[in-house]
């Protein structure tokens, strides 16, 4: 693997995380628990789709085969998508969505803070812009974790259930392989092991206020970063790719 291939793979991982989570959050549009929150969730979906677009644009440029951001977003096979399993999980109830978002936001904020210092100018610039959005997402999800955790007994039990269920997908956020190793040497990629302690301590802090417990079972699931997804992924892609597959090679 050369540097260019590594940057392409690295960028696609980031783009796919944003795309799939944006896709999931966009499913809430029109169905939120209250009108104000419907609007808030849609803003988050818009930010994520925007981030995905920027990272796909860059990936297409790095790839240099004349593809567009849409080719990359819509026309790969399932195994070629490299998002973590966490972001493709179904929305479930509002608590499931918030817990998924919270775990991701905490990671993403730390990640973009570091990536904005990357020696790759394009990645650094997109990270910088995305960081502002992500800080707001994190504020939103943190506040909701606290409201639901320290709300009613019902909401406490529900959000604790969401946390317990989704915990097994969180380790994959810190997945690294030779792609990362190669790019860390060049100060392009972020050393994710360095983020983990901060990720955990922020979560502990919020959970304490929310009266929630960090799950004790540490058994973890992974596979997304290598293209091995959950059963939900195929259906998500079936919707996402529907138009491009049914009507190939057209302008919209």
């Amino acid at each position, binding site marked *: 693997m050369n540097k260019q291939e590594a940057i392409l793979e690295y960028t696609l991982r980031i783009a796919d995380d944003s795309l799939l989570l944006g896709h999931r959050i966009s499913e809430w549009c029109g169905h939120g628990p*209250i*009108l*104000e*929150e419907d*609007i*808030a969730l849609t*803003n988050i979906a818009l930010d994520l789709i925007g981030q995905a677009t920027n990272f796909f644009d860059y990936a297409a440029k790095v790839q240099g085969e004349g593809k567009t951001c849409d080719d990359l977003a819509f026309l790969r096979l399932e195994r070629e998508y490299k998002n973590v399993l966490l972001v493709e999980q179904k929305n479930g109830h509002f608590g499931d969505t918030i817990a998924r978002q919270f775990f991701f936001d905490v990671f993403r904020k730390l990640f973009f803070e570091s990536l904005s210092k990357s020696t790759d100018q394009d990645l650094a610039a997109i990270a910088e812009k995305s960081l502002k959005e992500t800080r707001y997402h994190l*504020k*939103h999800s943190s*506040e909701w974790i606290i*409201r639901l955790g320290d709300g009613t007994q019902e909401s406490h039990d529900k959000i604790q259930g969401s946390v317990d269920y989704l915990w097994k997908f969180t380790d994959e956020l810190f997945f690294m392989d030779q792609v990362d190793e190669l790019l860390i040497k060049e100060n392009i990629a972020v050393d994710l092991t360095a983020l983990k302690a901060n990720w955990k301590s922020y979560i502990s802090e919020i959970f304490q206020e929310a009266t929630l417990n960090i799950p004790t079972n540490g058994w973890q699931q992974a596979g997304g970063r290598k293209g091995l997804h959950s059963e939900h992924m195929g259906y998500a892609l079936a919707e996402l790719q529907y138009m491009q597959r049914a009507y190939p090679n057209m302008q919209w």
Partner: protein
Amino acid sequence: MSSNEWPLWEVFIRSKQGLSHKHVGSLRAADAENAINNARDVYTRRSEGISIWVVESKLISASDPKEADSLFDPADTKIYRHPTFYEVPDGVLHM
């Protein structure tokens, strides 16, 4: 049925530095933080603001429209409060 209805908040937005906050509408929110976030998402989607105030609607006291005559009409006849009431000799500049 509406027992779990969130309180109503009035939203005021400063559109840019140097201007006052202006009332733009209302929304529902569970608490002040939530109200500010919601106001941001609802009322500043097109960069309409750089600062937000929220206040629970029930905390606002308003003058009574029935008293508008006695409250506001008396000022109408006090034209000497306006500079144009006074004559200044020709040739005086910048006063």
